[in-house]
């Protein structure tokens, strides 16, 4: 049987806006995923360490402090360094369009904007993880 999707939902940086992240966590849980929520004010180091410990398929990071161009690249870098560069990083928050494009360029799998419907959050994340798993399986066979 297909393994259920495990996802770590995290708030990095110093801002305390957790309304969105809690909606996302609940939406993913309602979509049948195993959701681990870190709570607020986590550092990139803490997030990546938890992701390894919990062996998740994806990390969903929410931040509304404006520090996304510092913290998200740092998380990607740590994921690579610590051997989980094959997992997905998904982000959410308030960010200008050009930053969204730049983040996708460097490897953030998706950016879920404000007002993404809860059901769409579930299907988007599931599609990303499943496509990723399929690719990994093909890659493993070759």
């Amino acid at each position, binding site marked *: 049987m297909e393994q259920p999707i495990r996802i770590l939902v995290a708030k990095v940086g110093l801002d305390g806006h957790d309304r969105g992240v809690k909606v996302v966590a609940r939406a993913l849980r309602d979509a049948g995923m195993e959701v681990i929520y870190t709570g607020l004010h986590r550092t990139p180091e803490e997030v990546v360490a938890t992701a390894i410990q919990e062996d998740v398929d994806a990390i969903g990071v929410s931040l509304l402090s404006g520090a996304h161009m510092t913290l998200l690249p740092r998380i990607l870098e740590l994921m690579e360094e610590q051997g989980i560069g094959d997992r997905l990083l998904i982000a959410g928050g308030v960010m200008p369009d050009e930053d969204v494009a730049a983040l996708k360029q460097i490897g953030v799998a998706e950016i879920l904007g404000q007002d993404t419907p*809860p059901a*769409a959050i579930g299907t988007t994340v599931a599609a990303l993880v499943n496509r990723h798993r399929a690719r990994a399986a093909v890659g493993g066979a070759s």
Partner: protein
Amino acid sequence: MTTGQLPLFDDDRRAAIAAEEAAWEAEELAAFLARQPEQRPGYVTRSRRPVRRVYTPADLGGTTFDDIGLPGRYPFTRGPYPTMYRGRTWTMRQIAGFGQAHETNARFRYLIEQGQTGLSVDFDMPTLMGLDSDDPRSLGEVGREGVAVDVIDDMRELFDGVDLEAISVSMTINPTAWILLAMYVAVAEERGCDLDRLSGTIQNDILKEYIAQKEWIYPIRPSLRIVRDTIVWSARHLARYNPINISGYHISEAGGDTVAEAAFTLANAVAYVEEVTAAGLDVDDFAPRLSFFFVSQADFFEEVAKFRAVRRAYARIMKERFGARKPESMRLRFHAQTAAASLTRPQPMNNIVRTAFQALAAVLGGAQSLHTNGLDEAYSIPTEFAMKMALRTQQIIAHETNVTNVVDPLGGSWYVETLTNELEAEIFRVLEKVDSLGGTVAAIEQGWFQRAEADFAYDVALRRASGEDVVVGVNRFVETGADAAQAVETHRLDPESERRQVARLRAVRAGRDATVVERTLKELAEVARDPAENLMPATLAAVKAQATMGEIVGALRDVFGTYVETPVF
């Protein structure tokens, strides 16, 4: 019994009106509905409160004239002052803050030039959380969402050329509010200001941080003590200053519905009043300086009724629960801000219109000061242009619509009065519930407020997704392709700002007398160990010695510990 204590409409008249309404329903209404049904099976407010098709005096029950009353008189339903905007227009207070102190200072001077009448400071996340700009956790956040303030030197520069006796200054700051208050007072002293002439506020509402905004440092009890100390100290030294701004805004933005916003805020107010009176202050010695902050959401009449209901509920609490005798202690004054979470990314110009209606609701609800959001805030902090548009929106309401000519113009509307009655009754039901849970602090510890917000927030997200709650440009009247882009220019922070602030802080550290800093911090920690002592004098000494925010916070962390939340979702 005075005339004012009699129901506005006696039983016989209400029964007669109800009978007439029943006849109308059977005749005109029934015939009309048979031809053309209503668009929805039922109608509700933003908070899911069912509303009737039409209201009459029959809905007012036993409401007396004294429940509604007159402005500037108990129970203050119609406003805290007898003349309201005829006497003085609300304070147009656009919040600003980014980069280094000198950059924000320039924005302040611009806003004053544009006709703004009060200043409001937004601080960056490290300042809000008590970290110095060179702390590793501050990386990427210095000056980002607000201005960076590390030491008194920054505070000096922030208000350079601003007359602190003439303009009121609001500082949106919570767990570190007492430190910034000390810096502000120290700068005012240096300039020879009369402290009793300083006006403005620090937000300093730590309880709603645990409930909603989530900026905290220490556990709840010592944090409450810090708030107590600022209120007690200000009551003795700052005659016109509001040492706390008890805030519903964040409760609403974090997901709370209208009653939650009003009731949780009053539950917090009750906890502060209990804390300060327990320290030996008479309620009338500090309550006149308590101030409030609420959101103004999109549901126009529900918001107007909320402002009226919360004023009346507060008056009754202060009089009946706390035995206040001065009318000023029972009179709720509030700052309002339009709802940031209602702003949309698609079709951003629509946000100007949304904000204007929300601002109008705040004005008709009797706000003392108002911040209108920038059209671009679903993208980033606002540009100068966006802030100017937001300020112009207020100026148009104040000077072109004539809504300011009459006090509480919606008073007496059967709908608005009924909503006001319902909201007030529900506020008191929530307060009873909080008391039954053991009070505000216990309810926070049980996650009760937090769960209520998360539930409503999720509900709203589902209703928006289903289209049940219409958001123009998002789930209705959606534009695709090039039209949808309607790109806005966003505020870009000078990337060198963070590096410059770190350098500046290090230069201050290198140039100050380290032994004095160390001594004042040690003394502050000593004072902190005795809960009966007031932290303010020792904090003033520390900031004057150029101790940094991070150092002061650190000194007390050793005494108080840190807060760890158990998150609920």
